[in-house]
């Protein structure tokens, strides 16, 4: 497992959720004349996840990690398996094609 994944730097690439969790947190009480309390970061997170219906959109805002991380998603595991299977099949096809070519050449 890639341990570097466990430390994420706080940069622009942070997921929207990380940023919202931090900059909106209710625990921080301050004294503005106007202070919009955005419902609940958790509700907002659900909203973001619902909104992010397509994978492309999810990738755009960095919300797709659970989809393809093989350690945490059976779907991710499947994607990996399929990829592996695909590569194996491709190899097999190449081998078969080679074999098909060989007898033709030998006849000449």
């Amino acid at each position, binding site marked *: 497992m890639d341990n570097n994944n466990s430390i*994420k730097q706080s940069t622009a690439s942070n997921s929207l959720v*990380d*940023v*919202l969790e*931090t900059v909106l947190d209710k625990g*921080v009480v301050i004294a503005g004349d*106007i*202070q919009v309390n955005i419902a609940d970061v958790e509700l907002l997170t659900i909203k973001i996840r619902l909104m992010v219906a397509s994978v492309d959109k999810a990738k755009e805002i960095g919300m797709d990690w659970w989809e393809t991380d093989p350690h945490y998603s059976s779907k991710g595991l499947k994607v990996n398996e399929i990829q592996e299977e695909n590569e194996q099949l491709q190899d097999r096809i190449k081998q078969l094609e080679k074999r098909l070519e060989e007898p033709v050449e030998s006849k000449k």
Partner: protein
Amino acid sequence: MIELDNDQLIYVYAFITEKQASTDNLEKITGIDPKNNVEFFTSEGLTAVICKVQSEDFAEENFKKNVEDMKWLQQRAYHHHELMNSLHDKFTILPLKFGTIFENDERLTNMMNEYNDQMKQILTDVDGKEEWNLKIFADREIFSEKVLEDNNEIAEKKQEISQLSKGKQFFARKKLDKFIEDQIQMEVEKKCKGIHDKLVKLSQNAEVKKNWEQKVTGRQDEMSWNCVYLVETGDEVDKFKKVIEDYQQHSDSEKEGLFFETTGPWPAYHFANFKSHSSTVLEGESN
């Protein structure tokens, strides 16, 4: 003083000391309202980092409506976050939550003077420190296996249940399931608490936050710890990260079923409370 049009408000990002502000003249940084630049506003030794905004975007009702628009919110929240990070690189800051707005300079001045001592104290407290968030996720299945393995009592009970009549089996199983669940929960909590105690020793302050439900995280494992730590920049942060990395490695090699997610460095958002003292009280603080 700030020249405001009638329909303008003041968006405040952060506070810094006047002394630090005087070392920088903020060269043309675009503010949260792209038409205006970020400015300094100083009163009694404190400087607010501000941007003038239009009330059509930020007056209470309009603002409430705007934050419903995810795209609007995303852009502004990122701007807030990025500007804060760049301030944090240059100054010791008291960061404010997204969307802190004052109606005019008089209101802002009053607030800055009223909380002057507290704010200066916070600026001293957070100087040279940064915030790190740690979330620990636990794979309940792995913990469940471990609990079942380690606990002979459960196997015995299962044996007993199989001897019971059908009707009695149902309730006995339910009771046993509950018992197993509790054991798992205890195991997970014990683990997290142990890690937390170690991290608290490397931190200046910590605030335990609520765990998110699975429908929020979208993950299959369960959020079992969510806490922010205030850590001294430099060696202490390195040690802090090393502790977490070591735990992750240990969990991976021993198949303990824990996953650690750390984000940071953040400006000290959770440790800049100057109104409410109660929410910075620690659970399980040992220093």
